[in-house]
């Protein structure tokens, strides 16, 4: 179950129906009739599921595969014989032989009316909206042949757009009150920033005391943006500034691309999920005018070196030197949504986090120091852009402590969607571009370990490949370096590797069962933290947490829509591409060896590394001022 329902915070009727309890019957099949034809479906299936199983189309708006039920929009209503009112097909479980009509006159009229009502409240035009051509309301209007506003159309905005947050923009004039953002934030992510407030016509999705997004405990994960059907929620878009920098001849604009981008950007050009576009993307970026095109996977390798070493040092202090103050398990720190989450909700446990920066930020620091030196460019003229599947990175790059290079380490965080938009503006149709073989030097080499960061479990797998080899001198005991316990979409996964026949300097780890845990989605992060507080994580050494369901490939900046199937395909694309790479372990990456030789000369977790590549965190707490 990919994070579908968490712990019953949703009202009872929004949870999957405990139909067996409701009627005493378990299992079995029911024979029903849809539009005059007979079908057989499992007992308890909703009408919507039954129709989808049989290729019968019912339009929906508030329904979403990842989220609990709502039944609020009434777009999916169907006629059930014998019932006076129309029923919401997304929420009606089939428990008896019923006859359903999905396109009767009543149904069509009702759907058209509901659309007219939604459109009458929807301020703004499609052509000035970021979701033009990818908007569910627009799609429904087209499907139902809306060609005039039956109930009028508002011509003045009712609300002010909230642009306070670094990552998320809220434009309530476009809201259709489907409650997807509420269900995402409260039920799926358990962060709790958005909720319906007030009543009746004045109902408004808002934050606590209507505070601006910057002032509440939003972790910027952007999952709400991914699920919003219209342009009411969108990301802060820096593309204008980036174009300005590219057009400015005095600026040296460097772009780094995260692993998840290449597996998903094809979707923005009409390709189905799971087609990797790495080589065409490199071409596109060069053609757009970026001075250098780097691969964040290099920095991911760097993160593995630093974080793996940090883990070993913690293990050494605890097991060899008996230092009781050492915090284990060590939690990964590359997900900025997770960082803000723990800073707000578990501020007393920040010491468990690795002090490593995320790959993006490490790269920024390296570029404005090492790279600037090597190329003889004044770092004041370097503009670093990071393309990420992530909206929280926009907040991360603006954190005050992220200036180890003496300048803002990363100037702009750009999302997959925004990059695709920039490509289209530049007239570049990605799938048809020629392929470039290589990212730019001196950071063109990246191992497969860096690439798998994009999927949940990837950081863990990458770290294990390196750590195990450092300690034992052998490759991880898994076929083709594929550490299967790390893979998959279960919310919380765990496994262990026993360290035997270790090298002499790691004697104290002989026989130690290295236990690790992986969680994705902040609801599961909460489960892990609660387990930590209860003392159940004694004996665990390493925990990977990603704020977004699915890992980075499910990030807030990824192509819309999202679904468990899409995320699975994106992850598969990453693993497939990774398996074919020549270098698959971070410590074997030649660029990594180079940077440690020439620049980070006191080695991982040494003084230079600490200054540039490590960071500290801020206790924020969950009290909203």
């Amino acid at each position: 179950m990919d994070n579908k329902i968490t712990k019953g915070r949703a009202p009872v009727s929004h949870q999957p129906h405990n139909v067996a309890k409701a009627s005493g019957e378990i299992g079995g099949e029911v024979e029903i009739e849809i539009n005059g034809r007979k079908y057989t479906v499992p007992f308890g299936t909703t009408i919507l599921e039954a129709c989808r199983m049989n290729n019968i189309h019912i339009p929906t708006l508030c329904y979403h595969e990842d989220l609990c039920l709502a039944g609020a929009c009434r777009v999916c209503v169907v006629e059930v014989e014998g019932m006076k009112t129309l029923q919401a097909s997304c929420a009606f479980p089939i428990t008896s032989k019923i006859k359903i009509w999905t396109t009767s006159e009543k149904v069509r009229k009702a759907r058209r009316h509901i659309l007219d009502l939604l459109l009458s409240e929807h301020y703004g035009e499609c052509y000035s909206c970021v979701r033009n051509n990818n908007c569910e309301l627009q799609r429904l209007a087209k499907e139902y042949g809306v060609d005039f506003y039956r109930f009028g159309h508002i011509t003045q905005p009712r609300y002010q757009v909230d642009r306070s947050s670094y990552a998320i923009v809220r434009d309530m004039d476009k809201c259709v009150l489907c409650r997807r953002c509420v269900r995402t934030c409260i039920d799926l992510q358990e962060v709790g920033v958005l909720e319906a407030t007030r009543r009746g016509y004045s109902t408004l999705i808002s934050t606590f005391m209507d505070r601006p997004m910057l002032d509440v405990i939003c972790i910027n994960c952007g999952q709400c943006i991914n699920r919003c059907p219209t342009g009411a929620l969108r990301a802060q878009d820096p593309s204008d500034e980036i174009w300005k920098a590219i057009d400015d001849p005095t600026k040296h604009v460097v772009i780094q691309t995260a692993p998840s981008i290449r597996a998903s950007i094809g979707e923005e050009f009409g390709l189905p999920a799971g087609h990797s576009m790495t080589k065409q993307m490199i071409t596109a970026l060069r053609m757009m005018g970026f001075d250098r095109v780097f691969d964040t996977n290099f920095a991911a390798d760097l993160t593995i070196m630093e974080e793996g070493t940090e883990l070993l040092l913690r293990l050494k202090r605890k097991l060899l030197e008996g230092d009781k103050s050492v915090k284990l398990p060590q939690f990964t720190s590359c997900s900025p949504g997770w960082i803000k989450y723990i800073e707000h909700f578990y501020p007393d446990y920040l010491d468990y986090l690795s002090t490593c920066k995320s790959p993006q930020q490490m790269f920024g620091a390296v570029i404005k120091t090492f790279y600037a030196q090597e190329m003889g460019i004044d770092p004041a003229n370097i503009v670093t852009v990071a393309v990420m599947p992530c909206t929280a990175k926009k907040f991360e790059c603006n954190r005050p402590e992220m200036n180890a290079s003496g300048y803002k380490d990363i100037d702009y965080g750009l999302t997959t969607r925004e990059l695709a938009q920039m490509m289209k503006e530049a007239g570049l149709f990605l799938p048809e571009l020629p392929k470039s073989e290589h990212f730019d030097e001196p950071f063109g080499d990246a191992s497969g370990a860096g690439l798998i960061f994009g999927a949940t479990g990837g950081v863990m797998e990458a770290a294990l490949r390196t750590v195990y080899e450092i300690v034992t001198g052998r490759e991880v005991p898994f076929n083709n370096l594929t550490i299967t316990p790390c893979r998959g979409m279960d919310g919380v996964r765990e496994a262990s590797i026993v360290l035997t026949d270790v090298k002499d300097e790691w004697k104290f780890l002989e026989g130690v069962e290295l236990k690790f845990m992986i969680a994705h989605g902040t609801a599961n992060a909460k489960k892990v933290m609660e387990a930590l507080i209860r003392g159940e994580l004694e004996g665990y050494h390493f925990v990977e947490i990603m704020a977004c369901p699915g890992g980075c490939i499910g990030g807030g900046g990824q192509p819309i829509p999202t679904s468990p199937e899409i995320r699975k395909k994106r992850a598969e694309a990453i693993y497939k591409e990774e398996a074919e790479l020549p270098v698959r372990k971070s410590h074997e990456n030649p660029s990594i060896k180079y940077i440690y030789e020439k620049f980070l000369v006191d080695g991982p977790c040494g003084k230079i590394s600490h200054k540039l590549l490590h960071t500290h965190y801020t206790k924020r707490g969950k009290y909203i001022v």
Partner: protein
Amino acid sequence: MPIINDTIFFDEKAHGEALEKALKMSPHEVVLEIRESQLRGRGGAGFPTGTKWMLALSAQADKKFVVCNADEGEPGTFKDRVLLSEYTKLVLEGMVIAGYAIQAQKGFIYLRGEYAYLLEHLLNYLDRMRKENRLGENILGTNYSFDIEIRLGSGAYVCGEETALIESLEGHRGEARNRPPYPVNTGYLGYPTIVNNVETFACAYIVISKGAQWFAKYGTEKSKGMKLISVSGDCKKPGVYEVPFGIKIKELLELVGAEDTKAVQIGGASGLCIPMSEIERNISFEDVPTGGSVIIFNKSRNMLQVLRNFMEFFVEESCGQCTPCRVGNKKLLEGVEMLEKGICTHHYLNELIELGKTMQIASKCGLGQSSPNPFISIVTNFKDEIMSNYLGSGNGQ
């Protein structure tokens, strides 16, 4: 139909010892008696009470709940207030009987916040019942235990809807739930729950006291028993009346001393507006249903103003969850405003009537399903007056 001699509520001697009687029957027998009486819910929706209790009794769960819906918010309804303050025994012991019938352990009275002044009286009465062993552990020496807690509402009409009420009890916003599953299977905190109106419990008490056959003597074929009607508006004797179902509107008007009547709103803001041409119709679930509210308008009243009052009510009281009700009611109100200014075309008015019909079938709960009723009935029955209202006369016939 003549004025009745046997009354249910207003004759204290008729109240009997229903609780003692019920506890000697089996729960199943109690439910059967209710079913035989053909008692239907008195809150307005009219769901057969016996069926509801039967479903709850047969539901398997380790906890069950009885909820008394005292969130009497329908404009023009005040009969529950009278029942709770002056016929408390019928209601509270009716709840205990219901609890016994479905084998529930706990009951709630969801008392609307506007009736908070009744709280002390009810709490004292419950204490007295506990002292007399008619509530609490081992009621009247049997091994049946049941207790009642009072919860106050906080000023939301929509919480009178049964699933919105349960949501409110659970600490949520009062937004209606998806049904199925129904409260009898999945109600308060997921347990089987029956939600019944104050008057329904009182009637259930009477049914057990005087028998299903006696109860079914009154009323019509599909609407058995007596009904409490709260009459207000332009009449000489407003107040609460006990009448048999099937009473003609004309007869009721005579009973309450209505003169110069132009229209009668039956069923509150969610009901129908009956013009004088239809006063031969009767009050029953088959013809013109009501939860108890009857509001009388005389010839001096402006029907468009009345309609505006109702539509403003719905716009403010809608919970806002589903599109047809949240936006639809606003559109209907805007339509009324256009009519007031004289800029509503005949064509657009028909569009609004069609919208009303969609709202009646596509809304998520009873509020949105019945809020178009006054709009459609007033606009249809008083068409000329509505369309020429802006001309200033407002008193068209």
